[in-house]
């Protein structure tokens, strides 16, 4: 059976035009997808059943036992943390946050090691953005700053920017100018009209120089700024200002580099500066397919996009203190539930060591680095393949992912609902 308009649950592009052929409980072929989509849909490497660490080895256990034991661990903990969420659908995220509320737990999502700094910047200066269709239909200048879409968001350029024809740009590749800014010459840089190589850590200075030029202060620019020549800066500023509609996309090259949220703040303020002359928008290149959804769901329930601590009864938010890496670094939490993420692979070693020290439970379809650090892992259905639910694209557009077949695994929602019920019973009214 061929299913059309399938939503890809890999990256924040959330492409919804895949054609997937399914034979029973098996994906046979994928059309329109990128390499990442093909791997995701064709991959078949599920953990077969719940497992529990047993001394120096592992044993298979039932779902009932796994869920009951998880509830006991969470109820016994003084300072539990519920982490991940970006790899599951919104309905599961919602239950997870309410579970954290019930437990007085800390709840955080993967933005914490991704675009968390972008959120901090937005909380300082706001965010002039738009949906991706605005860019596709209108943008004649596109900037990728500290992001490499060809590797991380393979169809971003063909669906939304460089190669995507739009209403006001009938021949996009010819009519759009592309600027790429990075510390290394990525695949994306190879097709740019203008590639700016910045010395590592130099983003803030280069953004400041461009802001100064846009403000008409060319005379204060030194011959070279963080390895970028004054001539190139002038050329790029003129290109930026020539746009009828300019779109800036930025990635972890800004959020993870020295300066972090201040880099992003500067990029937003450049956008605002350009908006005084012509139309400009800026957008973070969100990684996980539903990381933006986790920010949305966190926000409407708790008021904050990530790093929420319920220990005081109210929702408390103080990134740098209530962010996962900091809590693990301080060895503060005494139990961890991981849903839809792999902190073992993506957190610094010291954090992984603490996850191994405390009872860590993982709800995830696949074994990964965190598996080896866990006490229990509960396999679930993969949203977009054998489970469905809401996802938010990197620009905030909500799309319902599809279930392609009914498989044998429960969904994140089902597991979390059972967990919530057990914890609620244990905690009393």
């Amino acid at each position: 059976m061929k299913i059309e308009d399938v939503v890809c649950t890999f990256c924040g592009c959330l492409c919804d035009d895949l054609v997937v052929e399914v034979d029973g409980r098996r994906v046979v072929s994928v059309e329109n997808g990128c390499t990442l989509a093909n791997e995701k849909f064709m991959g078949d490497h599920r953990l077969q059943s719940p497992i529990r660490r047993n001394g120096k080895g592992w044993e298979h256990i039932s779902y009932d036992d796994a869920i009951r034991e998880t509830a006991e661990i969470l109820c016994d903990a003084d300072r539990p943390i519920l982490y991940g969420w970006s790899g599951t659908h919104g309905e599961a995220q919602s239950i997870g946050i309410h579970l954290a509320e019930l437990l007085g737990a800390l709840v955080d999502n993967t933005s914490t090691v991704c675009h968390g700094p972008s959120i901090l910047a937005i909380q300082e200066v706001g965010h002039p953005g738009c949906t991706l269709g605005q860019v596709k239909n209108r943008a004649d200048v596109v900037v990728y700053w500290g992001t490499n879409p060809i590797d991380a968001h393979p169809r971003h350029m063909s669906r939304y920017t460089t190669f995507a024809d739009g209403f006001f740009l009938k021949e996009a590749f010819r009519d759009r100018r592309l600027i790429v800014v990075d510390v290394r010459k990525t695949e994306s840089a190879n097709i740019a009209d203008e590639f700016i190589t910045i010395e590592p850590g130099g983003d803030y200075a280069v953004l400041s120089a461009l802001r100064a030029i846009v403000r008409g202060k060319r005379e204060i620019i030194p011959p070279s700024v963080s390895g970028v020549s004054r001539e190139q800066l002038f050329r790029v500023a003129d290109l930026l200002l020539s746009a009828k509609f300019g779109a800036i996309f930025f990635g972890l090259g800004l959020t993870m580099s020295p300066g972090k949220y201040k880099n992003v703040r500067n990029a937003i303020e450049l956008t605002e500066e350009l908006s005084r002359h012509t139309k400009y928008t800026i957008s973070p290149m969100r990684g996980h397919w539903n990381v933006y959804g986790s920010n949305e769901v966190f926000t409407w329930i708790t008021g904050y996009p990530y790093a929420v601590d319920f220990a005081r009864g109210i929702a408390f938010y103080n990134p740098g203190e209530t962010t996962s890496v900091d809590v693990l670094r301080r060895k503060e939490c005494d139990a961890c539930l991981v849903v839809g993420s792999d902190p073992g692979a993506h957190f610094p070693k010291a954090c992984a060591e603490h996850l191994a020290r405390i009872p860590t439970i993982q709800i995830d379809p696949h074994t990964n680095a965190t598996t080896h650090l866990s006490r229990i892992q509960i396999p679930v259905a993969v949203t977009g393949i054998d489970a469905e639910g809401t996802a938010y694209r990197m620009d905030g557009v909500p799309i319902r992912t599809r279930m392609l077949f009914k498989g044998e695994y429960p969904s994140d929602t089902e597991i979390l609902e059972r967990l919530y019920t057990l914890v609620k019973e244990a905690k009393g009214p």
Partner: protein
Amino acid sequence: MNFLLNTGRTIRQGSYVERKNSDAYKGEATSLYMHPVDMMILEIEEGSHVRVESNQGDVVMKVHPALWISQREVFVCLGPYANYLVAPETHCSGMPDFKSTMVTITPTTDLLVTVAELMERCGGVRYED
């Protein structure tokens, strides 16, 4: 020899991300990209193993030449190997310095470790299907 370690996504890392215990993932996540001039100075060839050490620990990786990276900088895709070297300090931002870790690189004949072995070093217990 000292280098600045940068990390980021690669298409292969993304492709194998749901098979983190596979040889393919291990191969990609231990691949260290270095400018050929630096390789010459270190007297290593493509495919040589190196010990990469930071103030957090050390891990063995495999070198690949790359002209897209500057001298004295190396690139490894994000993942448990690179993160074995990254400090948990966030400077009150929540975000570690994933793209600016100082490392020392020396040639070695030691073998690459699996993700399971690496996690065991972190205190875990390996799970094998």
